[in-house]
């Protein structure tokens, strides 16, 4: 009886104190709390769907679980964002996966930036104006009355010739000179036999020998300039491709799922200096982001609808819910009414998507060399060394192991790799890419530098 009474009293005390015990339990669950150098941080982002892991980490409390108090601040454009990270006003930011490579290599403002976490894989689309689509349609193979995807740039070639004959220039837009979309657009055009232009020592705008002139435009202006006819197409992340469909001003013809599947689109970046001064804080951020990515891709995307609701708030992406949902919930709409199932249109965590593979970095470097931004041929180990300087899977692994210990991740979520993905041919032209042999990869292209 005494034992029973003792047991009863102890459990009563426990139950009555549960509210205060609970925080302790979740703190224990999140693992030993890291001793943070800085707990109030400001991160920048651009209003594109793939900033979603940052938003979810904040809104779902993953940052707070790590003891981080994060302010997310929308930036006007990529240049302002990169400048503010380099200048120190932002602790870190949502970045184009190739931008840190460009900046570290000195192609733009020289700054050593690292990516310890890949925010998204795929997620971009190439959209053309309605008139260009009408002209392209007869050249696109169809099946049962619907265009066969992927639509290759070969279908665009006759229109380019038409424009050339009429003395008009065919203009397309992308987001940043060392940005994902520049390389995806150029790859698509090059694969279709269209020259997108080269960067030379005297031409920093990349239009030498160009059959299509590519220039930088901020995403919201892409839609406006497409409508006005100033540009005839663009490559950008969503929701802008779907916005064009909803507003009837353009037609997406393909997505990065078809052009360069598996290559990282956006990464979370900080300067190396900041990372050296705040190693524990960086680990905490990456832990929270891994949990966010996991939540986003959980159970075949059951949480995606909630993510859409959160993203449509004006302080995040702000676009209408149905526009964001169109590409975030397993589908993608091409021609109006032609909605296809594309569950991998944007991937955040599945198939080790968030692990910063060196092969992803090297792919971007090969494309920078192909189009002349990297002025001279470089040996294979130059690519390898630069990739290792910028992409930091060691930090990702440290964070992932902490999460495994705390029970949030399972061992199978951690890839067994040396940092390079095996060779793959998942590109729109079928070219086989092996990250360990960049120069060999370059040799197989017909347009652009081949060494």
């Amino acid at each position, binding site marked *: 009886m005494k034992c029973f009474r003792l047991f009863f009293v102890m459990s009563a005390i426990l139950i009555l104190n549960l509210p205060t015990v609970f925080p302790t339990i979740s703190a224990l669950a999140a693992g030993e709390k890291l001793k943070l150098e800085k707990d109030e941080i400001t991160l920048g982002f651009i209003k594109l769907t793939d900033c979603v892991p940052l938003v979810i980490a904040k809104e779902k409390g993953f940052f707070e679980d790590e003891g981080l108090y994060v302010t997310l601040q*929308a930036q*006007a454009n990529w240049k302002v964002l990169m400048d503010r990270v380099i200048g120190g006003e932002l602790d870190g930011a949502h970045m184009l996966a190739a931008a840190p490579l460009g900046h570290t290599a000195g192609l733009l403002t020289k700054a050593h930036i690292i990516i310890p976490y890949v925010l998204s894989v795929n997620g971009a689309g190439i959209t053309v104006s309605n008139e260009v689509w009408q002209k392209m349609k007869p050249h696109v193979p169809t099946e049962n009355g619907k265009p066969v995807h992927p639509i290759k740039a070969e279908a665009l070639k006759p229109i380019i010739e038409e424009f050339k004959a009429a003395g008009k220039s065919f203009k397309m837009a992308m987001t940043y000179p060392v940005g994902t979309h520049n390389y995806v657009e150029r790859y698509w055009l090059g694969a279709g036999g269209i020259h997108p232009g080269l960067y030379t020592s005297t031409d920093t705008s990349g239009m030498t020998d160009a059959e299509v002139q590519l220039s930088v435009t901020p995403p919201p202006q892409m839609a406006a300039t497409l*409508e006005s006819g100033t540009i005839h197409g663009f490559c950008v992340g969503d929701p802008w491709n779907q916005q064009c469909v909803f507003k009837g001003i353009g037609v997406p013809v393909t997505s990065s799922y078809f052009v360069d599947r598996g290559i990282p689109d956006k990464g979370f970046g900080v300067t190396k200096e900041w990372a050296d001064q705040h190693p524990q804080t960086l680990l905490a951020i990456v832990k929270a982001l891994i949990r966010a990515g996991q939540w986003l891709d959980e159970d075949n995307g059951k949480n995606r609808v909630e993510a859409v609701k959160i993203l449509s708030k004006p302080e995040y992406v702000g676009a209408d819910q149905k526009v964001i949902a169109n590409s975030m919930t397993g589908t993608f709409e091409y021609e109006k009414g032609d909605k296809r199932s594309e569950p991998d249109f944007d991937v955040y965590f599945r198939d080790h998507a968030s692990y910063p593979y060196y092969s992803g970095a090297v792919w971007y470097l090969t494309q920078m060399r192909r189009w002349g931004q990297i002025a001279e041929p470089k040996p294979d180990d130059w690519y390898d060394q630069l990739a290792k300087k910028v992409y930091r899977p060691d930090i990702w692994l440290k964070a992932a192991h902490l999460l495994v210990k705390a029970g949030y991740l399972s061992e199978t979520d951690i890839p067994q790799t040396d940092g390079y993905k095996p060779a793959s041919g998942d590109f729109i032209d079928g070219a086989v890419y092996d990250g360990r042999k960049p120069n060999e990869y370059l040799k197989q292209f017909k347009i652009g530098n081949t060494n």
Partner: protein
Amino acid sequence: MIEQTQTLHVKENNNTVGGRLLQGWDRFVTALSLPLCSLVIFLLLWSAVAARINTSLGKLPGPMQVATQAKVLWNEHLLERHKRKEFYERQAKINAEKLAADPTSERKVRKYTGKPTYLDQILTSLLTVFTGFFLASIVAVPVGVICGLSRPVMMALNPFIQIFKPVSPLAWLPIVTMVVSAVYPNNDGFLSKSFINSAITVALCSLWPTVINTALGVASIDKDYINVARVLQLKILPKIFKIIIPASLPLIFTGLRISLGVGWMVLIASEMLAQNPGLGKFVWDEFQNGSSDSLARIMVAVLTIGVIGFLLDRVMVLLQKAVDFGK
């Protein structure tokens, strides 16, 4: 004779309290009814035209949508304030618990990390414009006085004034940003860099009207005043503060008023690029959102900017009347 008496009779009535009140009322009604009529006509025209224009961002918002969005922004503000209050209460509770459990434990008071609301953004814009305006005035008024007093100085400085006056804020901004980054490399300062960039750009663009008007005001002071100063054998500083500045106040204030107007316009443009969290950033962020409410929200911002600009102008006019004498 009878008519004259009648006219006198009427005139007498007008001078009574009742008569004067009636006259005042008449004037008030006329003063109010004309703008009111034109406002109603404007709103009707706006609704009619908006319904017909179809942009790619949806129909051009009419007055009803704009009013709805204004209400939405106000509600968002209240909701955010409520969330902030809850956050601080939660934090206070956690800190109190920590204190109770262990008096020596480290307790931090952290700032709420939610977004700035529409009213916060209005306040930021006002703060920035006043800082820029203040910077501009403390530079422009002394320079203007010196230019007005000395013709050689005026001729020397005039080319610079004329060349820098037309420069747009968007052209100054990159230069200002780089200089501020170089001079102010750390971010431990009290003020954020975006605030400084915006304030300096506002100052650079808005100081010219004040310089020109002050110089003009000082140069065109009544010669009698200068003679009085000579007669009294005033030294230069008392001469400036007791005679020159008071005499040229009307033109100085005109310059200040124009400068504030220019500064307010420049502020919105510079905020868009400098990322200062004010109304300019609000407009640019809404443009980037591209939602079906975005145009209406941008129109709310346009109207807010206009109303605030008008109020700022009125404040300057009141200040001017307060210091003006002889009018």
